[in-house]
């Protein structure tokens, strides 16, 4: 160990002249350490070693950031940030004052001051104050916030006492946990930025804490004061970018993660005293200011407006159907369905519920989405992607799908109370596959949709609307679907839906046991081209065992080989649009895909139907509001295949659409999160590359830039005092030496070290010698001794010349190179 390091800082110890501390600060690279070592080695005193000021400053920053993050987490969205800033300022002031007192006490007393009882008192007072606060000001905090407040107060106290190392450690750990717990409460975007900054400072703090231990026994001959700052800055910057990107705006990183949250959705428990709900519970704050924003709350105000009906949406999206000029149809249903079809056709046409697959060519829509106050028709909270049924179609005559008749013979609906909440349950639905299904809950909030039918997922098991405990408010509509006995669904009121999700890969046995279903779900239109379609179905299904794999093969073939084109239409004189789609154009809108899937599967003996409704697209997930909006573009058609009594499985044949599967396992979630991160990076590749390039350029030229900045700063700093001017120039030269890898160790004078390690030409040497001579005078001469040897202007000129001669470039060129040892 170098004896130089063991020596206490002579200048600090002497302290005769006012210029001595200045000299110490200038000439000793590590005055704090020297002082600390001197104190430590003195022995005999009970004072524990003091932490370096810089490290305590970092601990301060860490604690202050954590405290501010905690304050931010407690505040409501949209509140003013001024109280938080004021609170942070007060905390900083109190902490600084306390820290100053502790440091002073350590210097004045022989023993270390006793602060443990003070810290305990701070914690106890937090809890003692709460009943007074509730009694006097009628303002209280929930228990968890109270505990966190006590934690924050203790952390601030420890940070103030961080001049002792043990408190420094504890303050850092507590701040980490405080930020972590605050994250569970936070929703403010600013919070994510604050956490990113906290993480960056925390990484720096960890590294500095470790380096402080290493630095004590650093070899003097190979001393580097601190590791290169960019080593810490770059990871910190990366952390800021990643955390900031993940928490800011809409991206799929959070969308994927959010889908795994359990939703209380009405059948979970809730705590009336909780500050916030867990998941989507009923304690969320009512959105009275922004009614368009969605939260599954029960007391949101009702709002009336002219919303589009489902059939308006179909016509908006797919254009109006072509009314055939000829009354007779070229392709007809089988004879046994002809009679029933005639009746139903008449009813459907009257109600406008039938759906024709022969429609006009698209034209530019005149109505823009921006015309509406909200672009969304309704909002969905829960896992996505989700298919919400609105209309079921069973009979297909080659051009038009006829809707299923409403359930009339089903058992009456009943209300059950589950967890003090009224739930509408469906007693007639067989639940053969519920043992292998997983429960799923979603919440809807209708904003702009005019219908009385409740959009519902497959395998709906219950409906809950808060305070609605009368079963007569509901009625059966089509199979497995319910409507409200009113003209339209109540807008802005959460409708909770309970359903089950069946993993189709586990139901192969059901397909083989009974291909069942009523015959109307297997009826095929008659006609010449149906022969070719049946051949196509057999060819695609060949080689696959009957069951889900065969169904998936048909749907997969459609997804892969056909193009989804919402504007594609068959010729207006086309008699069989499905044949045109399957055999000719191979391009079409989603109802053609759904029709093709249903017909092809019927050709293979499966019972199928076509469903229209809404596709809840995960792309529309709002991470901050934690819901998915459904727009008029999300109107969608898909097919369903009959699996078992009461169970219809969604078959998605349209490219780009996904089906909600059972909840993913941990590995699948991680894989999805990784994929989403990768997609985010890929989508912002240009920005990332540009950012990285800028960072790389800055890193490569970091020393030159830093040198330029410090030189400009020196020039701008107009010091009237000659001594100050010389010393600041000397600091600049010292920093340049350090950046050039020639850091001046302890015990070397600036001049001695400079000329030992840098070989300059003679003229430059003379100027620099004079400069160092005057710098020695500035550092060590007592006040009044020697006064100014030259005029301030001349001194400034000399410093300027010295800085120019000892530039970074020249130092790198003229440095004395050492031979590496072999």
């Amino acid at each position, binding site marked *: 160990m170098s004896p130089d390091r063991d020596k206490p800082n002579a200048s600090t110890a002497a302290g005769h002249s006012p210029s001595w501390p200045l000299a110490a600060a200038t000439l000793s690279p590590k005055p704090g350490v020297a002082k600390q070592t001197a104190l430590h080695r003195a022995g005999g005193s009970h004072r524990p070693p003091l932490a370096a000021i810089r490290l305590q400053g970092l601990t301060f920053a860490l604690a202050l950031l954590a405290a501010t993050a905690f304050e931010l987490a407690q505040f409501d969205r949209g509140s003013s940030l001024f109280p938080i800033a004021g609170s942070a300022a007060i905390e900083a002031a109190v902490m600084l004052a306390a820290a100053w007192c502790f440091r002073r006490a350590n210097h004045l007393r022989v023993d270390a001051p006793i602060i443990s009882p003070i810290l*305990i008192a701070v914690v106890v007072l937090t809890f003692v104050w709460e009943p007074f606060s509730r009694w006097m000001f009628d303002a209280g905090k929930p228990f968890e916030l109270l505990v966190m407040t006590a934690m924050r107060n203790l952390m601030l106290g420890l940070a103030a006492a961080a001049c002792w190392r043990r408190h420094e450690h504890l303050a850092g750990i507590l701040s980490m946990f405080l930020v*972590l717990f605050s994250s*569970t409460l936070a929703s403010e975007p600013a919070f994510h930025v604050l956490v990113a900054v906290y993480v960056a400072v925390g990484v720096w703090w960890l590294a500095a804490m470790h380096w402080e231990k290493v630095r004590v026994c650093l070899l003097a001959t190979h001393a580097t004061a601190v590791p290169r700052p960019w080593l810490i800055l770059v990871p910190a910057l990366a952390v800021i970018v990643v955390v900031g990107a993940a928490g800011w705006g809409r991206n799929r990183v959070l969308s994927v993660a959010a889908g795994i949250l359990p939703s209380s959705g009405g059948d979970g428990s809730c705590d009336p005293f909780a500050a916030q709900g867990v998941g989507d519970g009923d304690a969320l704050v009512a959105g009275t200011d922004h009614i368009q924003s969605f939260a599954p709350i029960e007391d949101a105000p009702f709002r009336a407006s002219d919303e589009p009906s489902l059939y308006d949406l179909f016509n908006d999206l797919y254009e109006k159907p072509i009314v055939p000029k000829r009354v007779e149809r070229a392709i007809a249903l089988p004879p046994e369905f002809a009679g029933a079809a005639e009746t139903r056709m008449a009813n459907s046409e009257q109600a406008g519920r039938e759906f024709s697959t022969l429609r006009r060519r698209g034209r530019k829509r005149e109505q823009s989405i921006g015309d509406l106050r909200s672009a969304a028709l309704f909002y969905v909270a829960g896992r996505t992607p989700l298919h919400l049924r609105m209309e079921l179609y069973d009979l297909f005559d080659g051009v038009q799908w006829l809707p299923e008749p409403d359930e009339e013979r089903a058992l009456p609906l009943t209300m059950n109370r589950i967890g003090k909440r009224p739930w509408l349950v469906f007693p007639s639905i067989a639940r053969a596959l519920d043992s292998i299904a997983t429960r799923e809950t979603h919440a809807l909030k209708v904003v702009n949709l005019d219908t009385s039918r409740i959009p519902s997922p497959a395998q709906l098991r219950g409906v809950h609307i808060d305070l609605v405990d009368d079963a007569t408010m509901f009625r059966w509509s089509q199979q497995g679907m319910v409507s409200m006995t009113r003209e339209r669904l109540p807008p802005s009121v959460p409708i909770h839906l309970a359903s089950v999700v069946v993993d189709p890969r586990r139901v192969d046995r059901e397909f083989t046991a009974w291909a069942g279903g009523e015959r109307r779900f297997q009826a095929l239109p008659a006609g010449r081209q149906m022969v070719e379609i049946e051949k196509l179905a057999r060819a695609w299904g060949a080689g696959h065992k009957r069951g889900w794999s065969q169904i998936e093969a048909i749907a997969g073939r459609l997804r892969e080989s056909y193009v989804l084109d919402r504007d594609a239409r068959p010729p207006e004189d086309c008699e069989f649009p499905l044949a045109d789609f399957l055999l000719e154009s191979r391009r079409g809108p989603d109802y053609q895909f759904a029709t093709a899937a249903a017909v092809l599967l019927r050709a293979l003996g499966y019972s199928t139907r076509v469903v229209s409704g809404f596709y809840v697209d995960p792309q529309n997930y709002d991470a901050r509001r934690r819901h998915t909006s459904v727009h008029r573009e999300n109107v969608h058609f898909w097919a369903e295949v009959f699996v078992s009594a009461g169970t219809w499985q969604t078959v998605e044949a349209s490219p780009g659409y996904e089906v909600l599967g059972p909840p993913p396992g941990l590995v699948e979630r991680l894989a999805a999160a990784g994929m989403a991160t990768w997609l985010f990076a890929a989508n912002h590749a240009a920005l990332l590359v540009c950012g990285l390039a800028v960072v790389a350029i800055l890193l490569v030229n970091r020393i030159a830039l830093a040198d330029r900045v410090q030189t400009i700063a020196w020039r701008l700093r107009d010091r009237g005092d000659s001594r100050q001017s010389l010393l600041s120039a000397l600091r600049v030269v010292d920093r340049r030496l350090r950046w050039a890898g020639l850091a001046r160790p302890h015990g070397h004078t600036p001049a001695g070290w400079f000329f030992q390690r840098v070989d300059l030409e003679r003229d430059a040497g003379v100027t620099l010698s004079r400069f160092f001579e005057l710098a020695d005078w500035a550092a060590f001469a007592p006040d009044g001794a020697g006064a100014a040897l030259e005029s301030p202007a001349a001194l400034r000129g000399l410093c300027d010349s010295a800085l120019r001669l000892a530039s970074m470039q020249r130092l790198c060129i003229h440095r004395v190179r050492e031979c590496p*040892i072999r």
Partner: protein
Amino acid sequence: MSQNQITLTGRQAAGQSLLVRIAAALHYDFCPWANRWVYWLKNPLWSLVLATVTAIICGICINTNVLILAGVLAGILALGVVWPWLSLRGVCCELSFDELRTRERHPVIACLKVHNRCPWPAWGLLLERGLPSSDGGTASIALARVAGWTSCEFTWEFVPARRGVYPLEPPELATRFPFGLFRAAIRAGVGRELIVWPRTVPLESLPDTVEIDPRDERHSDRHAGDAGEVLGTRAFRQGDSLRRVHWMQSARHQRLIVCERQAPASCALSLSVDLDASSYADSGAESLEQVIRIAASVCESLHRLHADVECRIGHESFLLSQSGGSLRRLMDHLARVPQTGYKIESAAKSAPCRIRSRLMISLTTDAGLARRIGQPHSNLHERLIVVQSRRDIAAQPRAGEGCCRPWIEFDAACDLAAELPVRWRRACRVA
């Protein structure tokens, strides 16, 4: 000082005393036995692991935003573990000293050659174990950075605090950079060991009551008498032997003249050093070090004064001859004595002195003295130098008790440089 001021000061003192008592209660270790189970919490690694687990639980159960924090914490953990491990992948090093022997607290130049085969640099390297620092720390030196694809040589002044063969245990080059979470280490090769002799104090006196064992080649004294070279003549005194009468001179001077003779004499003594571990079981390492320092000081000083010294350590015996080799062997042996002493069997403990006629000096502790008191066959002429280590005076064997009494006594914590020359000189004169 007025009465009010006195009262105020008294209250302040009482308040401070209360504060001290509360602090003492807060810091009282109620279950010291459990400390070893919680020491691991001091490592920031486990704090971070705990925080990560908490974040995952909070993320799954409460708010998915916390999962991002969990990811960041896991990333920091991974960085803190992988970086040190990766840093030392291509590093090898060798430690050597520029001298073979030195003494306690005498500086030597140590040299560490580090070779980094990998392209990335290694930061914050610590040379740990084997070379304890003077303040008791395990790290000897720290290297800020070893660049990639380089070989570097670092030299520093090493001051061994205690005797021994350095490095005391295989040294390791370790790093915990950047966060101090994980320690990666490689074994450092040792090119040349350093033997550190115990610290000695020069002694100037020889025991007065020594047996004379003349040797021509070296002597510590001259003994006048009947033997040896003729020194001169003198008048006959009553009691002189007639054999010494110089008849020719007597005839010439008409009175009896006798011859005066002088023979070279050497102080011969046997020093027995009690290094039995049982003698230091209670007193600790400091007593053992004091005993070894006293033994080394006595042997080295007497050897310098040409005394004939036989030093017995356990079952080994060292005869210090004129050459320096014997002293070097003895000092090397003393340097290699384990920190807790030897485990010597009972038979070896009572091994007899090789030359029984010599003065016997035994070096032991109060525990060793207590054991001797109970032994009836102890040598009555043995002189005991005792290092007292027990603070309990009542438990110490009293001087003159039994057949053993200390010749010189030292405290285990005393300053040998000041105490030993004075007490040794006084003991030699008095004896």
